[in-house]
């Protein structure tokens, strides 16, 4: 506890703590949809193509958050169209977008005049350097994600469970899938700030997987995902602070250890 209080004396730790809570909330809601719809690889494609937008934003010196958002939303709308028309977009295409996004991003960063390319913060994130204004944007977008999923919860569940049946009930399947994809891309971009592009998928999937292990009902899954996400983010952060290690990787590894532990416990309790 005293380690926690010590850490909390610093502004950057307070920011990091608030960012962790927002991230846990986003992972719990949007991540759960992504995992149950088996769109994890697809969201990986979105997060890596967001890097093209980040790089371009640097080059044109605009807020990198908006560059990344624009790229991620555009890519996810293309993917939503493919999902509606072909059920599963071809994974070769996602792989291609993955590589193209990174390449375009790196080229832009490299071309930016007077800017020494340091890609590490983007790739692995740095939750300890989140500024107050970044936090405000993050809170605002989190609020938008919460409101949209709150209002459209039932239709979104229906469409992600069975799109054909939903379309026969007159639900606007294409629109709802696009909404879901836009929400995912917003979430991905916000999470890139905390754990970086490479680890964002882990953060999107680990808490929902823990939730799915512990509950059979969607709300229960999301609650457990939130609780475990928060535990992993804050615990991982403090651990990283104590051990003087980078935050993102420590957060992700704590999540994987927790997931393994929960699965093991479940196996032991269900076999007795």
């Amino acid at each position, binding site marked *: 506890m005293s380690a926690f209080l010590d850490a909390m004396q610093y502004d950057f730790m307070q920011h990091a703590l608030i960012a962790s809570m927002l991230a846990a909330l986003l992972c719990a809601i949007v991540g759960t949809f992504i995992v*149950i719809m088996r769109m994890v690889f697809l969201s990986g494609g979105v997060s890596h193509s967001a890097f093209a937008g980040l790089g371009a934003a640097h080059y044109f010196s605009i807020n990198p958050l908006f560059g990344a958002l624009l790229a991620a939303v555009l890519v996810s709308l293309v993917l939503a169209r493919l999902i509606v028309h072909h059920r599963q977009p071809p994974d070769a295409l996602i792989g291609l977008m993955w590589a193209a996004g990174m390449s375009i991003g790196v080229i832009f960063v490299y071309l930016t005049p007077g800017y020494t390319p340091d890609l590490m913060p983007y790739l692995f994130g740095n939750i300890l350097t989140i500024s107050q204004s970044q936090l405000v944007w993050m809170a605002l977008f989190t609020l938008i994600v919460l409101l949209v999923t709150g209002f459209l919860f039932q239709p979104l569940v229906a469409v992600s469970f069975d799109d054909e*049946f939903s379309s026969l009930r*007159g*639900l*606007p399947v294409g629109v709802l899938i696009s909404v879901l994809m836009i929400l995912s891309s917003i979430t991905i971009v916000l999470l890139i700030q905390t754990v970086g592009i490479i680890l964002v998928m882990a953060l999107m999937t680990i808490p929902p997987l823990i939730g799915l292990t512990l509950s*059979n*009902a969607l709300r229960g899954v999301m609650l457990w995902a939130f609780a475990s996400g928060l535990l992993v983010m804050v615990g991982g952060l403090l651990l990283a602070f104590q051990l003087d290690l980078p935050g993102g990787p420590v957060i992700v590894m704590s999540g994987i250890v927790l997931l393994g532990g929960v699965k093991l416990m479940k196996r032991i309790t269900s076999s007795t």
Partner: protein
Amino acid sequence: MADQRKLLVSLRDIEYTYDSGKVLDGVNLDIYQDDYLAIIGPNGGGKTTLLKVILGLLEPDRGTVTWHDSKTRRHIGYVPQFASFEREFPLTVRDVVMIGRMHGHTLLQRFDQKDVLHTTSILEKLGLVDIADKHIGSLSGGQVQRVLIARALVSDPAILFLDEPISSIDQDSRFALTGMLKELNARIPIIVVTHDITAFAADVAHIACVNNRLFYHGDGELDNGCMEEAYGCPVELVAHGMPHRVLKQHRN
């Protein structure tokens, strides 16, 4: 003989091609107000594709699907194939059935008391009340089938389509299901896709035989010629212990 019954859906010259090849070719079909139509045929013959084309879930490459009555079109009940959804999905039986109460025009509304009561009454009717709060992943094949039927029925459909409804259920559930469908058919038309006609043979009014082409669309009598043409090899038609003989006596 001119058919005086109300025509609901007409399909004309339907053609549908997957990457692997043409699966429907020149299919014509009419569905009437009080129909009980069985669509039969070999696996891969295009039964499910035909059903999805009728429902508007697939767009045919050629030909037209015309719904003559828009009210019926808006109240379609659909029971998809048993294996068509993700069983790991974290929903309970009641959650899944309630999805049938949703409408496009009430997108932002929550379920109300009426939705809940109606869902409960359908769950009771199908013997699902005791497992209403169970996870769909923990159900048996027959239970899943009944859940999918309940989901279709809670919407008070004006027409009901079922895709292989008896493929994964035991004999007793089959009788219960076919009995219920027969009862429903007094009010609404029913279209059932099946590779196993024997369970339905006593009840259906029409049988359509699909193997890329639609070979026969008759009045419940089926002969070997149609079946041979559709299946591409001689088929024995046997109908055991049925109240009416709907299949012609086979020649020795």
